[in-house]
């Protein structure tokens, strides 16, 4: 029966329109709006995510970063606007096509969101067992390869609760990457971590990009971390992207809210 579903998923994937995988813009967000009752949170967000690069979305608390992330991964459906992933409008997909397209993304949640009833190994093996027909040996080999690459192979048989915050993040990255997703989304990956672990997580994001060639989207307000890892930056303010570009371009932005945010972060190009 699992085979039936996997085949259905494969057919759904095949039925998707042709994907533009050579376009340097991996994800194009066009005029996305989202409201909750009277509260208009996203007021026409437009943004390009560059293929194979680390793209950061920054902004103060309450600016709509997490809401934007939830639309991007289709945990919620935008009220209007387009989410073009490889040229396909992700916002319009439903059912099996949506499920098939979701495999393009891997998600690393703020609190890692590892399944606490499963071991580290089972957490990472879970997407493979659900979505592939790999043999036990193949699953084991692929999981252990990912865990080794991220330096947590020794913790394979531990439960998530037995790991430190940094190790949990590594396992979460391994789980997000095990299906060889093209895009990894990190939601505030360094919030609440000590400086050493923060640096470790930053290195991890850079390593993931360099080793596996993934496109990274990082949502953060930790400016020190941002400056270390970003290739491209976008500043979200009151539900709109008000500045975007390279690190240098963003630091020189004349938009008042962006300039104020940069000034308060005490970050300079030097």
């Amino acid at each position: 029966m699992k085979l039936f579903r996997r085949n259905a998923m494969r057919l759904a994937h095949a039925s998707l329109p042709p994907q533009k995988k050579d376009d340097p813009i991996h994800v194009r967000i066009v005029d996305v709006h989202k409201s909750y009752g009277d509260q208009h949170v996203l007021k026409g967000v437009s943004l390009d995510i560059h293929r194979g690069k680390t793209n950061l979305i920054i902004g103060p608390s309450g600016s709509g970063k997490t809401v934007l992330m939830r639309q991007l991964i289709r945990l919620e459906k935008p009220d209007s606007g387009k989410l073009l992933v490889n040229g396909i409008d992700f916002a319009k997909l439903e059912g099996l096509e949506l499920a098939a397209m979701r495999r393009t993304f891997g998600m690393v949640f703020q609190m890692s969101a590892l399944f606490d009833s499963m071991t580290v190994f089972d957490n990472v093996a879970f997407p493979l067992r659900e979505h592939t027909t790999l043999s036990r040996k193949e699953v084991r080999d692929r999981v252990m390869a990912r865990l080794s690459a991220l330096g947590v192979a020794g913790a394979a048989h531990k439960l998530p609760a037995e790991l430190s915050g940094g190790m949990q993040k590594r396992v979460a990255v391994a789980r997000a990457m095990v299906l060889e997703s093209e895009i990894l989304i990190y939601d505030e990956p360094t919030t609440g971590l000590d400086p050493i672990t923060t640096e470790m997580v930053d290195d991890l994001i850079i390593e993931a990009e360099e080793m596996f060639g993934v496109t990274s989207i990082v949502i953060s307000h930790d400016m020190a971390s941002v400056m270390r890892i970003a290739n491209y930056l976008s500043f979200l303010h009151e539900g709109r992207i008000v500045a975007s570009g390279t690190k240098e371009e963003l630091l020189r932005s004349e938009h008042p809210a962006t300039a104020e945010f940069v000034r308060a972060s005490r970050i300079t190009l030097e």
Partner: protein
Amino acid sequence: MPDAAPTASDAEESSKPRASLRDAGEWLLKLLLSPFAELGALFELLGEALFWGIRPPYRGRLLVEAMEFVGIGSIFIVSLTALFVGGVLALQLVDGFRDFGAENQTGAVIGLALAREVGPVFAALMVTSRAGSAMTTELGSMRVTSQIDALITMAINPVQFLVVPRLVAGLVMVPVLTMLFNIVGVFGAFFVAVSLLGLDPGVFMDRLQWLVDWDDVSQGLIKAMVFGIAVTLIACRQGFYARGGAAGVGRATNRAVVQSAIAILMLDYLVTSLILGQGFF
């Protein structure tokens, strides 16, 4: 001296009582409608579970785990309560029946009460307190730590993965636990009535077999199935949509236990009315 013209702040002041009256009205309306909203949400989740329950993949291991948790895990607590409930029923009935020389009917009445009412109601209440509350806490923790969102991002339907196995486990295991409750309850009543109160064992069992038949047992089992679905559905609904961190999970668990207990007693009345053909009221 002429009256001063009304200012904007005067108009604001006079509109305050109207605004607070409207707020109170809205609050009252919301309070009156909330049970219906809750019922609607339960049926919505049940519908979703039915839809996803018949679609592959069928995860047998999850079902076995849920059945083990609801059923095997509740054997001790159900047996213990059944033993004492049977015993106390025997104490009360022998004492009451002796006043008019009818203590020989003790076995029959206890058998009937256990099979039709006490067995399914108590078994469901025990499952609520042990397994239902744990289900809400587990799903609630998964919700507030984004584990349910993680399932969605991995293209796995969380209702199919988390709710369906628990509902099926409730549907199957609460009747099984009801049967266990009936058997252990009769044993407890027999021990108290015969060993402690001196009733004749042959008469006790003879009257029990004479009055209790398969219809009585099946009535109890139908109720147990309804309770099993209700208890697990409420527990899953409260956990699945829990919000507000650890405190929110605590509140959800509290609501799940209270709602389940009320639902068991209300459904008991409704199902009994239907089975006996008496109408609801």
